[in-house]
């Protein structure tokens, strides 16, 4: 019988491309023969924008990269700037930062869980995920007044100290969360249909994953124990007890399981941070550059200048964001604005591995594998 290959254009407006992503698929019936990922529909020129803003002004823009988990974006940029300018950060600020980032990791994985299951056709887990996320977002709201675009971590510390009653609320959230994760596991993990859809689907070998530059949980799902929190420790991570979760299979199910385990690990880290929160100031009191001491009582940032000039130089600093390695390359020419900013975003690098995972499989497998990569299009296109 004479057959013809079908060119299918999936996206940029499609229910399960998580935003504006486009796949150009060459189909043989239901089987994908070739896949091309077309991105750039959400390009906003964030890197270029950074060259026109002062160091402090660019922080809110980093919120808009990976808007599901914005704290690590804040931190990655701020860490680069602090290394560039040699700013020292008090211990309490570092504790608060780690607390925020790990809380955001839980939030990110909750959204991942929900959207993955929604992609597979189960409508309930996303509601459960968002129910718990709401509680975490309320914690963030309490902390910095915003729910998703925080602008909370700043060079020199954090914007405001912990509010009253934050730690008890956090403890309540963590206690609740443990039970909810059990619920998710009972609801999803053993489900035969879920296993059918996830096991041995979208397999990528460790070597191939490394070659594509995949990082984060997606890489750890292939059995590579690559976690920047351990390899190149930053902030207070060297003092914390947590294990790097990884599964050797490299299929969609392994990537899913890594994230479920990471949720538990993050809760474990959160507990340590919340219990050992040191007293002190949440922002540096070091006078920097030309700025006078203003001493405004409104903010713990009051000692830190709004405009500062790091010495000429360049720095690449990377952290383990929930989706993978997030790096900021910042070049200073000694003025108040960075000369160049380059963002190495985890979603972008993980996304390019999709074609090699799904060629020869079917459209539903593309959806499942794409869901387990966990990309945010704001992060892909920047």
């Amino acid at each position, binding site marked *: 019988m004479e057959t013809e290959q079908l060119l299918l254009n999936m996206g940029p407006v499609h229910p399960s491309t998580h935003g504006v992503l486009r796949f150009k698929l060459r189909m043989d019936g239901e089987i994908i023969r070739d896949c091309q990922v077309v991105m750039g529909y959400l390009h906003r020129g964030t890197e270029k924008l950074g060259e026109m803003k002062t160091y402090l002004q660019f922080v809110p823009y980093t919120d808009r990269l990976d808007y599901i988990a914005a704290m690590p974006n804040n931190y990655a940029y701020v860490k680069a700037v602090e290394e560039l300018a040699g700013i020292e950060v008090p211990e309490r600020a570092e504790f608060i930062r780690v607390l925020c980032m790990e809380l955001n990791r839980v939030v990110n994985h909750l959204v991942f869980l929900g959207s993955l299951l929604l992609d597979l056709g189960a409508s309930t887990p996303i509601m459960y995920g968002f129910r718990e996320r709401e509680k975490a977002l309320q914690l963030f709201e309490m902390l910095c*007044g915003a729910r998703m*675009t925080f602008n909370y971590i700043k060079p020199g510390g954090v914007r405001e100290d912990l509010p009253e009653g934050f730690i008890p609320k956090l403890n309540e959230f963590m206690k609740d969360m443990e039970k909810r994760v059990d619920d998710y596991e009972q*609801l999803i993990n053993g*489900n*035969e249909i879920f296993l059918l859809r996830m096991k041995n689907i979208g397999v990528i070998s460790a070597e191939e994953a490394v070659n594509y530059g995949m990082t984060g949980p997606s890489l750890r799902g292939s059995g590579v124990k690559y976690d920047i929190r351990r390899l190149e420790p930053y902030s207070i991570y060297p003092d914390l007890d947590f294990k790097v979760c990884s599964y050797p299979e490299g299929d969609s199910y392994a990537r899913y399981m890594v994230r479920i385990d990471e949720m538990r690990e993050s809760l474990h880290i959160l507990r340590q941070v919340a219990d050992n929160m040191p007293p002190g100031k949440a922002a540096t009191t070091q006078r920097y550059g030309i700025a006078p001491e203003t001493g*405004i*009582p409104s903010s713990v940032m009051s000692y830190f200048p709004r405009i500062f000039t790091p010495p000429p130089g360049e720095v690449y600093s990377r952290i383990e964001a929930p989706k993978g390695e997030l790096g900021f390359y910042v070049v200073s020419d000694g003025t108040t604005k960075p000369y160049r900013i380059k963002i190495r975003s985890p979603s972008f690098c993980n996304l390019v591995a999709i074609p090699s995972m799904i060629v020869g499989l079917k459209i539903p497998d593309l959806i499942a594998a794409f869901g387990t990569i966990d990309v945010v299009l704001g992060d892909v296109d920047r």
Partner: protein
Amino acid sequence: MIGIIQGLIVTLKHVLQIGNRPTVTVQYPYERMKVSPRFRGKHAVDEDACIGCGICEVNCPNGTITIVKYNTRWFPQFDLGMCLFCGLCVDVCPMNALKMTGDYELADYTRESLIYGPEKLLFKKEVNK
């Protein structure tokens, strides 16, 4: 089969609301959630404290703020259609005159009506005499 039955049990627990699984939705227009005191919503300008210096204007990353003349003095005017609600203007204000309120229902029909001039933003701090 066993896994599916386990899942069915979890969802049934939610239907019957067994074990701290209550309905959590907020019926929005009729009931509202309390926003935190630090909530970053619509701005407010302290009429007595503001000196119209323009530091907020300079520091705004998005060019939201312009300083306009209102009666005899100068005050900031916010184009909330462009605002990031990052709170930098509040952080940098030398007189501590700016604050952000919990007012988040800012949707409007035209871009022009999103420009909030001093007449909409000014407030007077109560002073203990």
